[in-house]
Protein backbone atom coordinates (compact mmCIF):
# COMPACT_ATOMS: atom_id res chain seq x y z
CA UNK A 1 0.00 0.00 0.00
CA UNK A 2 1.27 3.44 -0.73
CA UNK A 3 1.04 5.86 2.15
CA UNK A 4 1.15 8.98 0.05
CA UNK A 5 0.24 9.26 -3.58
CA UNK A 6 0.18 12.28 -5.85
CA UNK A 7 -1.42 11.89 -9.26
CA UNK A 8 -0.76 14.77 -11.67
CA UNK A 9 -1.23 17.32 -8.93
CA UNK A 10 -1.08 21.00 -9.77
CA UNK A 11 -1.21 23.85 -7.32
CA UNK A 12 -1.46 27.29 -8.84
CA UNK A 13 -1.19 30.64 -7.11
CA UNK A 14 -2.70 32.90 -9.67
CA UNK A 15 -0.68 32.26 -12.81
CA UNK A 16 2.34 30.82 -11.06
CA UNK A 17 2.32 27.09 -10.66
CA UNK A 18 3.98 25.95 -7.44
CA UNK A 19 3.31 22.35 -8.34
CA UNK A 20 3.04 21.38 -11.96
CA UNK A 21 1.51 18.04 -12.76
CA UNK A 22 3.39 16.27 -9.99
CA UNK A 23 3.01 12.51 -9.67
CA UNK A 24 4.74 10.16 -7.29
CA UNK A 25 3.97 7.52 -4.76
CA UNK A 26 5.63 6.87 -1.41
CA UNK A 27 5.71 3.36 -0.07
CA UNK A 28 5.09 2.39 3.51
CA UNK A 29 7.75 2.71 6.19
CA UNK A 30 10.41 4.47 4.19
CA UNK A 31 12.39 7.58 4.95
CA UNK A 32 12.23 9.79 1.92
CA UNK A 33 14.29 12.90 1.44
CA UNK A 34 12.59 15.72 -0.40
CA UNK A 35 15.22 17.76 -2.15
CA UNK A 36 14.88 20.86 -4.22
CA UNK A 37 15.89 24.45 -4.42
CA UNK A 38 13.98 27.27 -2.85
CA UNK A 39 10.74 27.71 -4.73
CA UNK A 40 10.80 24.22 -6.18
CA UNK A 41 7.47 23.52 -4.47
CA UNK A 42 8.68 21.40 -1.55
CA UNK A 43 6.68 23.14 1.14
CA UNK A 44 3.60 23.41 -1.06
CA UNK A 45 3.78 19.72 -1.75
CA UNK A 46 4.14 18.85 1.93
CA UNK A 47 1.27 21.09 2.98
CA UNK A 48 -0.97 19.51 0.41
CA UNK A 49 0.11 16.09 1.62
CA UNK A 50 -0.64 17.14 5.19
CA UNK A 51 -4.08 18.37 4.21
CA UNK A 52 -3.40 21.98 5.10
CA UNK A 53 -3.92 23.10 1.53
CA UNK A 54 -6.06 22.02 -1.33
CA UNK A 55 -4.58 21.12 -4.70
CA UNK A 56 -5.82 23.04 -7.73
CA UNK A 57 -6.15 19.91 -9.80
CA UNK A 58 -5.11 16.28 -9.70
CA UNK A 59 -5.60 13.68 -7.05
CA UNK A 60 -3.88 13.34 -3.68
CA UNK A 61 -4.21 10.28 -1.49
CA UNK A 62 -2.83 9.78 2.00
CA UNK A 63 -3.63 6.39 3.50
CA UNK A 64 -6.02 6.06 0.56
CA UNK A 65 -8.01 9.14 1.52
CA UNK A 66 -8.01 12.71 0.34
CA UNK A 67 -6.04 14.54 3.04
CA UNK A 68 -7.59 17.99 2.86
CA UNK A 69 -9.83 18.63 5.86
CA UNK A 70 -9.64 14.93 6.71
CA UNK A 71 -9.75 13.90 10.34
CA UNK A 72 -8.36 10.41 9.84
CA UNK A 73 -5.35 11.73 7.94
CA UNK A 74 -4.87 14.46 10.53
CA UNK A 75 -4.84 11.93 13.34
CA UNK A 76 -2.23 9.78 11.62
CA UNK A 77 0.00 12.51 10.33
CA UNK A 78 2.15 15.18 11.86
CA UNK A 79 3.90 17.90 9.97
CA UNK A 80 6.76 19.69 11.65
CA UNK A 81 7.70 22.95 10.02
CA UNK A 82 9.26 26.25 10.91
CA UNK A 83 6.06 28.21 11.20
CA UNK A 84 4.27 25.75 13.41
CA UNK A 85 1.76 27.58 15.50
CA UNK A 86 1.55 26.79 19.17
CA UNK A 87 -0.81 28.44 21.62
CA UNK A 88 0.90 31.22 23.48
CA UNK A 89 -0.96 30.36 26.66
CA UNK A 90 0.67 26.99 27.05
CA UNK A 91 4.13 26.23 28.32
CA UNK A 92 6.19 23.50 26.70
CA UNK A 93 5.20 20.85 29.20
CA UNK A 94 1.52 21.57 28.60
CA UNK A 95 2.01 21.44 24.85
CA UNK A 96 3.52 17.98 25.22
CA UNK A 97 0.62 16.93 27.42
CA UNK A 98 -1.80 18.16 24.77
CA UNK A 99 0.10 16.31 22.05
CA UNK A 100 -0.12 13.16 24.17
CA UNK A 101 -3.88 13.65 24.34
CA UNK A 102 -4.20 14.05 20.57
CA UNK A 103 -1.77 11.47 19.25
CA UNK A 104 -2.59 7.90 19.98
CA UNK A 105 0.97 6.61 19.65
CA UNK A 106 2.59 9.41 21.63
CA UNK A 107 5.57 8.25 23.68
CA UNK A 108 5.81 10.56 26.65
CA UNK A 109 8.84 8.76 28.00
CA UNK A 110 10.79 9.43 24.81
CA UNK A 111 9.54 13.01 24.66
CA UNK A 112 10.60 13.70 28.26
CA UNK A 113 14.03 12.14 27.75
CA UNK A 114 14.71 14.10 24.57
CA UNK A 115 13.36 17.23 26.25
CA UNK A 116 15.83 16.83 29.10
CA UNK A 117 18.66 15.86 26.79
CA UNK A 118 18.28 19.05 24.78
CA UNK A 119 18.01 21.02 28.05
CA UNK A 120 14.68 22.66 27.31
CA UNK A 121 12.80 24.43 30.07
CA UNK A 122 9.32 22.99 30.67
CA UNK A 123 8.05 26.37 31.93
CA UNK A 124 9.04 28.18 28.74
CA UNK A 125 6.46 29.21 26.18
CA UNK A 126 6.81 28.22 22.57
CA UNK A 127 6.97 31.82 21.38
CA UNK A 128 9.75 32.55 23.86
CA UNK A 129 12.10 30.02 22.31
CA UNK A 130 14.92 30.92 19.98
CA UNK A 131 14.61 29.62 16.43
CA UNK A 132 16.93 26.69 17.01
CA UNK A 133 15.29 25.75 20.30
CA UNK A 134 11.85 26.05 18.71
CA UNK A 135 12.81 23.68 15.95
CA UNK A 136 14.39 21.31 18.45
CA UNK A 137 11.16 21.25 20.40
CA UNK A 138 9.08 20.81 17.24
CA UNK A 139 11.34 17.95 16.23
CA UNK A 140 10.69 16.27 19.59
CA UNK A 141 6.95 16.56 18.90
CA UNK A 142 7.48 14.99 15.50
CA UNK A 143 9.47 12.08 16.90
CA UNK A 144 7.41 11.34 19.99
CA UNK A 145 4.05 11.48 18.22
CA UNK A 146 5.07 8.42 16.16
CA UNK A 147 2.57 9.16 13.44
CA UNK A 148 2.37 6.66 10.56
CA UNK A 149 3.14 9.63 8.29
CA UNK A 150 5.66 12.03 9.77
CA UNK A 151 6.69 15.07 7.77
CA UNK A 152 9.66 17.26 8.63
CA UNK A 153 9.97 20.44 6.58
CA UNK A 154 13.47 21.87 7.05
CA UNK A 155 13.56 20.53 10.61
CA UNK A 156 17.11 21.55 11.42
CA UNK A 157 16.95 25.25 10.58
CA UNK A 158 18.72 27.22 13.26
CA UNK A 159 19.91 24.17 15.14
CA UNK A 160 23.60 24.02 15.83
CA UNK A 161 25.67 21.25 14.31
CA UNK A 162 25.69 19.04 17.40
CA UNK A 163 21.94 19.16 17.79
CA UNK A 164 21.44 18.38 14.10
CA UNK A 165 23.52 15.26 14.38
CA UNK A 166 21.75 14.20 17.55
CA UNK A 167 18.37 14.78 15.97
CA UNK A 168 19.07 12.69 12.90
CA UNK A 169 20.52 9.96 15.04
CA UNK A 170 17.46 9.99 17.29
CA UNK A 171 15.25 9.92 14.22
CA UNK A 172 17.03 6.90 12.80
CA UNK A 173 16.99 4.98 16.08
CA UNK A 174 13.34 5.63 16.68
CA UNK A 175 12.52 4.79 13.07
CA UNK A 176 14.26 1.44 13.38
CA UNK A 177 12.36 0.66 16.56
CA UNK A 178 9.04 1.96 15.21
CA UNK A 179 9.12 1.94 11.41
CA UNK A 180 6.90 4.56 9.80
CA UNK A 181 6.75 6.70 6.71
CA UNK A 182 8.90 9.77 7.13
CA UNK A 183 9.46 12.64 4.73
CA UNK A 184 12.29 15.06 5.39
CA UNK A 185 12.78 18.08 3.25
CA UNK A 186 16.17 19.71 3.40
CA UNK A 187 18.54 21.95 1.57
CA UNK A 188 21.46 19.97 2.81
CA UNK A 189 21.36 16.53 1.31
CA UNK A 190 24.77 15.64 2.72
CA UNK A 191 23.41 16.06 6.19
CA UNK A 192 20.51 13.65 5.78
CA UNK A 193 21.53 11.28 3.07
CA UNK A 194 22.91 8.74 5.50
CA UNK A 195 19.51 8.03 6.91
CA UNK A 196 17.50 8.31 3.71
CA UNK A 197 16.29 5.36 1.74
CA UNK A 198 14.62 7.19 -1.11
CA UNK A 199 15.13 10.55 -2.58
CA UNK A 200 12.55 12.71 -4.31
CA UNK A 201 13.98 15.58 -6.26
CA UNK A 202 11.67 18.44 -7.20
CA UNK A 203 12.41 21.03 -9.81
CA UNK A 204 9.98 23.78 -10.84
CA UNK A 205 7.09 22.01 -9.20
CA UNK A 206 7.76 18.82 -11.06
CA UNK A 207 9.24 15.55 -10.07
CA UNK A 208 12.74 15.35 -11.42
CA UNK A 209 13.95 12.17 -9.79
CA UNK A 210 12.52 9.59 -7.46
CA UNK A 211 14.85 6.75 -6.65
CA UNK A 212 16.67 5.01 -3.83
CA UNK A 213 19.68 6.93 -2.58
CA UNK A 214 21.93 4.02 -3.57
CA UNK A 215 20.91 4.42 -7.20
CA UNK A 216 21.52 8.13 -7.08
CA UNK A 217 25.13 7.47 -6.24
CA UNK A 218 25.44 5.56 -9.55
CA UNK A 219 23.32 8.02 -11.46
CA UNK A 220 25.95 10.39 -12.71
CA UNK A 221 29.64 10.66 -13.28
CA UNK A 222 32.09 13.51 -13.69
CA UNK A 223 34.26 13.68 -16.71
CA UNK A 224 37.06 16.17 -17.13
CA UNK A 225 39.83 16.91 -19.59
CA UNK A 226 40.84 19.22 -22.42
CA UNK A 227 38.03 21.38 -23.63
CA UNK A 228 38.06 20.24 -27.27
CA UNK A 229 38.32 16.59 -26.30
CA UNK A 230 35.38 16.91 -23.97
CA UNK A 231 33.28 18.86 -26.41
CA UNK A 232 33.66 16.29 -29.12
CA UNK A 233 33.22 13.35 -26.78
CA UNK A 234 30.12 14.71 -25.06
CA UNK A 235 27.98 14.48 -28.17
CA UNK A 236 25.27 11.90 -27.63
CA UNK A 237 25.54 11.97 -23.88
CA UNK A 238 23.08 13.46 -21.42
CA UNK A 239 24.89 16.39 -19.84
CA UNK A 240 23.65 17.74 -16.53
CA UNK A 241 26.29 20.35 -16.12
CA UNK A 242 29.31 21.62 -17.90
CA UNK A 243 31.78 24.28 -16.94
CA UNK A 244 35.07 25.54 -18.21
CA UNK A 245 38.06 25.66 -15.97
CA UNK A 246 41.44 27.22 -16.17
CA UNK A 247 44.11 26.15 -18.69
CA UNK A 248 41.62 25.10 -21.37
CA UNK A 249 40.22 22.31 -19.32
CA UNK A 250 36.56 21.43 -19.02
CA UNK A 251 34.44 19.64 -16.51
CA UNK A 252 31.11 17.94 -17.15
CA UNK A 253 28.58 15.97 -15.19
CA UNK A 254 26.87 13.38 -17.34
CA UNK A 255 24.38 10.56 -17.00
CA UNK A 256 26.17 7.36 -15.94
CA UNK A 257 24.92 5.16 -18.76
CA UNK A 258 28.29 4.62 -20.34
CA UNK A 259 29.33 1.40 -21.94
CA UNK A 260 32.84 0.03 -21.49
CA UNK A 261 33.59 0.99 -25.10
CA UNK A 262 32.65 4.57 -24.49
CA UNK A 263 34.81 4.68 -21.41
CA UNK A 264 37.68 3.24 -23.39
CA UNK A 265 37.34 5.86 -26.11
CA UNK A 266 37.25 8.58 -23.51
CA UNK A 267 40.31 7.36 -21.70
CA UNK A 268 42.20 7.40 -24.98
CA UNK A 269 41.39 11.04 -25.56
CA UNK A 270 42.84 11.82 -22.13
CA UNK A 271 39.57 12.26 -20.29
CA UNK A 272 39.36 11.45 -16.61
CA UNK A 273 36.40 10.07 -14.70
CA UNK A 274 35.50 10.74 -11.11
CA UNK A 275 32.49 10.44 -8.82
CA UNK A 276 30.31 13.23 -7.56
CA UNK A 277 28.67 13.70 -4.20
CA UNK A 278 24.91 13.45 -4.14
CA UNK A 279 24.60 16.95 -2.82
CA UNK A 280 26.61 18.44 -5.68
CA UNK A 281 24.78 16.29 -8.15
CA UNK A 282 21.43 17.53 -6.86
CA UNK A 283 22.64 21.09 -7.10
CA UNK A 284 23.57 20.59 -10.76
CA UNK A 285 20.41 18.71 -11.50
CA UNK A 286 18.22 21.44 -10.15
CA UNK A 287 20.13 24.46 -11.40
CA UNK A 288 18.05 26.71 -13.58
CA UNK A 289 20.40 26.87 -16.55
CA UNK A 290 23.46 25.10 -17.72
CA UNK A 291 26.49 26.67 -16.21
CA UNK A 292 26.32 28.28 -12.81
CA UNK A 293 27.41 31.19 -10.76
CA UNK A 294 30.61 31.39 -12.82
CA UNK A 295 28.63 32.43 -15.89
CA UNK A 296 27.58 35.54 -14.07
CA UNK A 297 31.19 36.63 -13.94
CA UNK A 298 32.23 35.34 -17.38
CA UNK A 299 30.35 37.83 -19.48
CA UNK A 300 33.51 39.22 -20.95
Amino acid at each position, binding site marked *: MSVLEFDSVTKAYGRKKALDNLSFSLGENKITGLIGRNGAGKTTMLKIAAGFMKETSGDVRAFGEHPFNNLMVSANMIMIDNDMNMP*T*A*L*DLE*EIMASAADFYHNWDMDLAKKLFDYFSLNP*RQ*THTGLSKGMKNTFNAILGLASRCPLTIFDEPTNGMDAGVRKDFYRALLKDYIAYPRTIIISSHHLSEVEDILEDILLLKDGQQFLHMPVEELREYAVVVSGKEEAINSWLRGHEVFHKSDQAFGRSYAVIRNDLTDDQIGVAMKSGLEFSTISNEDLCLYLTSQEKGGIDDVFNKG
Partner: protein
Amino acid sequence: MSIVFLLLLIILLALSFGGFSNKIFGTRIMSGSGITKVFAGYFIILLGAGILSLMISVDETFKGDFLTDKEIEENDRLNSDIYPTIESGKIDEAEGLTKKESWEFPLKGRLLDVKIMNQHAQIFIEKVDSLEENVEVTHYSTYSYMDNIDITDRFPSPDIQLDGTILKIFPPDHVTIKLVKFSKAFPFTQFYEYGEQISNGYGMMQGMDFIYIRVPADIELSGDGYVIN
Protein backbone atom coordinates in the same frame (compact mmCIF):
# COMPACT_ATOMS: atom_id res chain seq x y z
CA MET B 1 -24.01 56.46 28.33
CA SER B 2 -24.64 54.53 25.15
CA ILE B 3 -22.21 56.80 23.31
CA VAL B 4 -19.50 55.81 25.78
CA PHE B 5 -20.19 52.16 25.14
CA LEU B 6 -20.16 52.70 21.45
CA LEU B 7 -16.78 54.39 21.68
CA LEU B 8 -15.51 51.65 23.90
CA LEU B 9 -16.75 49.10 21.41
CA ILE B 10 -14.95 50.82 18.57
CA ILE B 11 -11.73 51.00 20.53
CA LEU B 12 -11.95 47.37 21.50
CA LEU B 13 -12.76 46.39 17.95
CA ALA B 14 -9.79 48.31 16.67
CA LEU B 15 -7.60 46.65 19.27
CA SER B 16 -8.87 43.22 18.48
CA PHE B 17 -7.84 43.47 14.86
CA GLY B 18 -4.48 44.96 15.62
CA GLY B 19 -1.68 42.93 17.05
CA PHE B 20 -2.39 44.60 20.34
CA SER B 21 -5.37 42.38 21.00
CA ASN B 22 -3.21 39.45 21.84
CA LYS B 23 -1.86 41.41 24.75
CA ILE B 24 -5.32 41.88 26.19
CA PHE B 25 -7.38 39.01 24.92
CA GLY B 26 -4.60 36.61 24.26
CA THR B 27 -2.20 35.72 26.95
CA ARG B 28 1.05 37.45 26.56
CA ILE B 29 0.49 38.97 30.00
CA MET B 30 0.72 35.78 31.94
CA SER B 31 1.46 32.38 30.67
CA GLY B 32 0.94 28.88 31.81
CA SER B 33 -1.19 27.82 34.70
CA GLY B 34 -0.66 31.14 36.47
CA ILE B 35 -3.73 32.54 34.74
CA THR B 36 -5.89 29.72 35.97
CA LYS B 37 -4.76 30.32 39.54
CA VAL B 38 -5.36 34.06 39.34
CA PHE B 39 -8.76 33.49 37.82
CA ALA B 40 -9.63 30.92 40.48
CA GLY B 41 -8.67 33.48 43.13
CA TYR B 42 -10.85 36.09 41.48
CA PHE B 43 -13.74 33.66 41.34
CA ILE B 44 -13.40 32.85 45.05
CA ILE B 45 -13.43 36.57 45.93
CA LEU B 46 -16.55 37.05 43.82
CA LEU B 47 -18.19 34.06 45.41
CA GLY B 48 -17.41 35.39 48.88
CA ALA B 49 -18.81 38.81 48.01
CA GLY B 50 -21.90 37.20 46.52
CA ILE B 51 -22.59 35.13 49.62
CA LEU B 52 -21.93 38.11 51.89
CA SER B 53 -24.34 40.26 49.90
CA LEU B 54 -27.06 37.67 50.34
CA MET B 55 -26.40 37.46 54.06
CA ILE B 56 -26.47 41.13 55.00
CA SER B 57 -29.05 42.43 52.59
CA VAL B 58 -32.02 41.25 54.63
CA ASP B 59 -32.09 43.68 57.56
CA GLU B 60 -30.49 46.58 55.75
CA THR B 61 -32.99 47.03 53.02
CA PHE B 62 -35.61 49.69 52.74
CA LYS B 63 -38.92 48.66 54.27
CA GLY B 64 -41.90 48.92 52.03
CA ASP B 65 -44.15 46.91 49.80
CA PHE B 66 -43.75 46.82 46.10
CA LEU B 67 -46.64 48.06 44.08
CA THR B 68 -47.16 46.72 40.63
CA ASP B 69 -47.84 49.03 37.72
CA LYS B 70 -51.48 48.00 37.84
CA GLU B 71 -51.81 48.94 41.49
CA ILE B 72 -50.29 52.33 40.83
CA GLU B 73 -52.62 53.01 37.92
CA GLU B 74 -55.55 52.00 40.08
CA ASN B 75 -54.36 54.40 42.75
CA ASP B 76 -54.11 57.27 40.32
CA ARG B 77 -57.68 56.63 39.29
CA LEU B 78 -58.89 56.55 42.90
CA ASN B 79 -57.01 59.71 43.79
CA SER B 80 -58.92 61.73 41.25
CA ASP B 81 -62.24 60.65 42.74
CA ILE B 82 -61.29 61.08 46.35
CA TYR B 83 -61.87 64.78 46.78
CA PRO B 84 -65.52 64.83 45.69
CA THR B 85 -66.17 61.66 47.68
CA ILE B 86 -64.96 63.25 50.91
CA GLU B 87 -66.65 66.55 50.12
CA SER B 88 -69.97 64.79 49.89
CA GLY B 89 -69.40 63.37 53.36
CA LYS B 90 -68.84 59.78 52.34
CA ILE B 91 -65.32 59.37 53.68
CA ASP B 92 -66.07 55.84 54.81
CA GLU B 93 -66.78 54.86 51.22
CA ALA B 94 -63.64 56.43 49.82
CA GLU B 95 -61.16 53.91 48.51
CA GLY B 96 -57.41 54.19 48.57
CA LEU B 97 -57.28 56.01 51.85
CA THR B 98 -55.20 54.99 54.81
CA LYS B 99 -56.38 55.86 58.26
CA LYS B 100 -53.22 56.89 60.01
CA GLU B 101 -54.04 58.27 63.43
CA SER B 102 -57.03 59.53 65.38
CA TRP B 103 -57.48 61.75 68.37
CA GLU B 104 -60.37 62.49 70.67
CA PHE B 105 -60.68 65.67 72.69
CA PRO B 106 -63.35 66.58 75.32
CA LEU B 107 -65.11 69.82 74.46
CA LYS B 108 -65.71 72.67 76.87
CA GLY B 109 -68.37 74.99 75.62
CA ARG B 110 -70.07 75.23 72.28
CA LEU B 111 -67.31 76.93 70.30
CA LEU B 112 -64.49 75.45 68.19
CA ASP B 113 -61.86 77.38 66.35
CA VAL B 114 -59.79 75.23 63.95
CA LYS B 115 -56.32 76.53 63.21
CA ILE B 116 -53.87 74.87 60.86
CA MET B 117 -50.37 76.13 61.52
CA ASN B 118 -48.99 75.22 58.12
CA GLN B 119 -51.18 74.44 55.16
CA HIS B 120 -50.13 70.91 54.37
CA ALA B 121 -53.40 69.05 54.65
CA GLN B 122 -57.02 69.44 53.65
CA ILE B 123 -59.37 69.87 56.58
CA PHE B 124 -62.93 68.64 56.46
CA ILE B 125 -65.38 69.15 59.28
CA GLU B 126 -68.53 67.13 59.70
CA LYS B 127 -71.26 67.82 62.25
CA VAL B 128 -72.67 64.61 63.61
CA ASP B 129 -75.56 63.98 65.98
CA SER B 130 -73.96 61.04 67.72
CA LEU B 131 -71.25 63.17 69.33
CA GLU B 132 -72.12 65.33 72.39
CA GLU B 133 -69.08 66.38 74.39
CA ASN B 134 -66.21 65.26 72.15
CA VAL B 135 -64.31 66.18 69.03
CA GLU B 136 -63.00 63.33 66.91
CA VAL B 137 -60.04 64.05 64.68
CA THR B 138 -58.70 61.54 62.17
CA HIS B 139 -55.75 61.80 59.84
CA TYR B 140 -56.12 60.06 56.50
CA SER B 141 -53.76 59.98 53.62
CA THR B 142 -53.63 58.50 50.15
CA TYR B 143 -50.74 56.29 49.15
CA SER B 144 -47.30 57.72 48.63
CA TYR B 145 -44.82 55.82 46.59
CA MET B 146 -41.43 56.18 45.22
CA ASP B 147 -40.23 54.01 42.39
CA ASN B 148 -43.08 51.61 42.96
CA ILE B 149 -42.43 51.27 46.65
CA ASP B 150 -45.17 52.13 49.06
CA ILE B 151 -43.80 54.78 51.42
CA THR B 152 -47.13 55.87 52.96
CA ASP B 153 -45.96 54.77 56.40
CA ARG B 154 -42.99 57.06 56.18
CA PHE B 155 -45.08 60.18 56.63
CA PRO B 156 -45.97 60.90 60.25
CA SER B 157 -49.25 62.42 61.32
CA PRO B 158 -49.43 66.04 62.39
CA ASP B 159 -49.43 66.96 66.03
CA ILE B 160 -52.90 68.05 67.08
CA GLN B 161 -53.75 69.83 70.30
CA LEU B 162 -56.94 71.31 71.73
CA ASP B 163 -56.11 74.51 73.56
CA GLY B 164 -59.30 75.82 75.16
CA THR B 165 -61.59 76.23 72.20
CA ILE B 166 -58.79 76.30 69.64
CA LEU B 167 -57.90 73.11 67.82
CA LYS B 168 -54.35 73.54 66.67
CA ILE B 169 -52.92 71.38 63.91
CA PHE B 170 -49.12 71.50 63.86
CA PRO B 171 -47.24 70.33 60.78
CA PRO B 172 -45.41 67.02 61.04
CA ASP B 173 -41.64 66.84 61.12
CA HIS B 174 -39.88 67.20 57.80
CA VAL B 175 -39.30 63.82 56.21
CA THR B 176 -36.10 63.11 54.32
CA ILE B 177 -35.52 59.93 52.42
CA LYS B 178 -32.17 59.18 50.94
CA LEU B 179 -32.25 56.09 48.83
CA VAL B 180 -29.93 54.04 46.82
CA LYS B 181 -31.53 51.70 44.37
CA PHE B 182 -29.90 48.68 42.93
CA SER B 183 -31.48 46.96 39.99
CA LYS B 184 -30.49 43.76 38.36
CA ALA B 185 -29.23 43.79 34.80
CA PHE B 186 -31.79 43.53 32.05
CA PRO B 187 -31.68 39.78 31.47
CA PHE B 188 -32.94 39.33 35.01
CA THR B 189 -35.94 41.58 34.56
CA GLN B 190 -36.86 40.82 31.00
CA PHE B 191 -39.36 38.09 31.71
CA TYR B 192 -41.37 39.78 34.46
CA GLU B 193 -43.94 42.46 34.80
CA TYR B 194 -41.38 44.60 36.59
CA GLY B 195 -39.34 44.71 33.46
CA GLU B 196 -41.22 47.65 32.06
CA GLN B 197 -41.25 49.71 35.23
CA ILE B 198 -37.80 51.17 35.16
CA SER B 199 -38.20 52.55 31.69
CA ASN B 200 -41.60 54.02 32.50
CA GLY B 201 -40.12 55.76 35.51
CA TYR B 202 -42.98 56.43 37.85
CA GLY B 203 -40.60 58.25 40.11
CA MET B 204 -42.12 59.75 43.19
CA MET B 205 -45.68 60.40 44.22
CA GLN B 206 -46.54 62.08 47.51
CA GLY B 207 -49.98 61.27 48.84
CA MET B 208 -52.61 63.77 49.90
CA ASP B 209 -53.31 64.32 53.59
CA PHE B 210 -56.77 64.82 54.97
CA ILE B 211 -57.69 65.88 58.50
CA TYR B 212 -61.22 64.81 59.13
CA ILE B 213 -62.89 66.40 62.14
CA ARG B 214 -66.21 65.28 63.58
CA VAL B 215 -67.93 67.64 65.94
CA PRO B 216 -71.28 67.62 67.76
CA ALA B 217 -74.11 69.01 65.63
CA ASP B 218 -74.77 72.07 67.77
CA ILE B 219 -71.24 73.40 67.83
CA GLU B 220 -70.32 76.79 66.44
CA LEU B 221 -67.32 76.63 64.10
CA SER B 222 -64.75 79.15 63.05
CA GLY B 223 -61.29 79.15 61.45
CA ASP B 224 -59.93 76.84 58.77
CA GLY B 225 -61.60 73.86 57.26
CA TYR B 226 -64.35 72.94 54.87
CA VAL B 227 -67.61 72.22 56.58
CA ILE B 228 -69.41 69.41 54.90
CA ASN B 229 -72.88 69.99 56.32
